[in-house]
């Protein structure tokens, strides 16, 4: 018996073929269950409003772009007589809206909110990664007094509930005139992201051998040049991964945006729940808006998959 076990050609830690098969089937089942909500909201974006509230829920339906038209426009209901008096619709989306006895009144705020998300997201990501790279290099390479305390301080800023931070920030921004501005939101998101950036990038820079810089400095580089021309290129993958994590945080953030901005600078997350149609939420428009909002994140997740673990644990777990 024991001889057979030891004699087996495969390693004892290798699972059997059957074990693998069962494990694969179970994980596949979980993946299907967990993806149903996402697929469903994606499909809802291509339904008509009646189809979206049909019972039983429709899996097969005639696709329509009504949700996408609705998320980008505001519409007003008109009498059939008035619609009769109008010239025939110019565009496919005009005719789509007229079928519901409505005319397009103008663009919705969705486009602007999406732009705001991009501006705030990229602005805060750039600043956080810039500051974070410098600080991470400082912590990684030099003797800094109270290093561990400073690093823990940087991390501990993430433990405050966002609403708790928002109360004094709200008062501060009101005094400084930063309420409802891109700059105000960018500064705040930078502050939140920089803690992640420092911790992640310190890990990445720690992994670059010091000998590279030392060799460059023997060749006549200054410390600053060695940082720019040796360390930065070596850390580029880590910097890119960190940037994507910062971007995702800024893109997804809701509480600060809700409390500190309103019409001008507000990002997309607080807007999506307000896409109201007649008689409650316009689900296809919500589906369309959600799909457009989540799609970049899905792409980034696939790009990031090798570095995800580091990102979500502040660099505490690396492999």
């Amino acid at each position, binding site marked *: 018996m024991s001889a057979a076990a030891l004699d087996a050609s495969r390693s004892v830690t290798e699972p059997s073929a059957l074990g693998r098969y069962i494990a*694969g089937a179970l994980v596949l089942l979980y993946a299907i269950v967990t993806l149903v909500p996402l697929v469903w909201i994606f499909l*809802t974006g291509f339904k008509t409003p009646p189809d979206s509230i049909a019972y039983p829920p429709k899996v097969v339906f005639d696709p329509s772009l009504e949700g996408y038209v609705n998320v980008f426009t505001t519409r007003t209901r008109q009498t059939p007589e008035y619609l009769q008096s109008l010239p025939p619709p110019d565009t496919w989306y005009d005719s789509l809206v007229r079928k519901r006895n409505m005319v397009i009144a103008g663009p919705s705020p969705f486009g602007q909110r999406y732009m705001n998300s991009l501006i705030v997201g990229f602005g805060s990501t750039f600043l956080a990664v810039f500051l974070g790279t*410098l600080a991470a290099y400082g912590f990684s390479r*030099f003797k800094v007094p109270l290093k561990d305390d400073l690093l823990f301080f940087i991390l501990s800023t993430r433990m405050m*509930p966002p*609403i708790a931070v928002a109360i004094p920030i709200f008062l501060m921004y009101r005094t400084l005139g930063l309420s409802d501005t891109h700059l105000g939101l960018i500064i705040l998101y930078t502050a939140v992201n920089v803690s992640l950036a420092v911790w992640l990038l310190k890990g990445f820079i720690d992994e670059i051998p010091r000998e590279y810089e030392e060799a460059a400095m023997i060749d006549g580089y200054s410390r600053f040049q060695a940082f720019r021309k040796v360390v930065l290129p070596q850390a580029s993958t880590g910097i890119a991964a960190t940037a994507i994590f910062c971007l995702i945080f800024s893109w997804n953030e809701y509480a600060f945006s809700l409390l500190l901005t309103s019409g001008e600078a507000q990002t997309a997350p607080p807007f999506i729940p307000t896409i109201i149609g007649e008689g409650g939420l316009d689900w296809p428009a919500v589906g369309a808006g*959600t799909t457009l909002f989540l799609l970049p994140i899905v792409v980034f997740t696939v790009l990031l998959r090798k570095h995800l673990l580091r990102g*979500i644990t502040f660099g505490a777990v690396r492999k």
Partner: protein
Amino acid sequence: MAANLGRRLSDRTIAWLFITPTILLLLAINIFPLFWAIYLSFTNYRANKPGVEIKWVGLQNYERILGSEDIWGYLQVTAHFVFWSILLQVLLGFGLALLINKRFRGHATLTTLILLPMMLSPAVVGVFWTYLFQPQNGIFNYIIEFFTGIGAADFTMIGSVNLAPWSIVLVDTWMWTPYVMLICLAGLRSIPDYIYEAAEVDRASAWRQFWNITVPMVLPFLMLAVLFRAIENFKMFDMVVELTSGGPGSITELASINLKREAFEKWRTGFSSAFAIILFVTVFGAANIYVKVLNKVKQR
């Protein structure tokens, strides 16, 4: 120019030049506001009435909060949410990690797919789950009807006093199980094969190998995942606000949601600052104790 500049700077100067901007930013955006909030928590200040004179009220706000049955209720709601969502995520996440660690064909692709929910905006997740939970036509209720025969229109996940606390646990678990899974997977992969091989030579059963090797080796990783999840869920606001906005009644009113009401709807700035400080001290204190325990477990 840069070369000249760089040459003149000592390492010490560069270190400070590099670190100071970050520290200053955090002092301005986190520490200064924190002290401001501490000051406000001893006053009766209301942010919607900036003209009114600020009155020092001492510990009155803190006494009111700690003596308020409502606030203890919200903390219980939060505790229920944190406990059950993390328990489910640990069980499911660890289980999934064990399965994925069998390295069947296609496990890498499936892992990436499973990870998607945790990358999404929690507020937007809350919004679309209200759609899935629609009692008449939501896909969730329909699937439950399909498998159990309970009528889809006979129950409502977010409108019922009994089910609403579980609906927020369910959505959070859907979203964050992959998080625990990913960290557990890293733990499993950190166990060297030779430990199992040695156990095999000693003829330890698979059950004993699991409890004596796998569990203790993964434990530090699992505890780290629990720490991060617990901090996040204790602060939870966005997903639950969009899903239930604390309802029905105040059945799912988490501490953060109530804090937002006090601070930005009732504008009791002083009172809510005190509440915020209490929440922060709780998280900070608990996290510190937990990290000490975690370090002991790691050293074993």
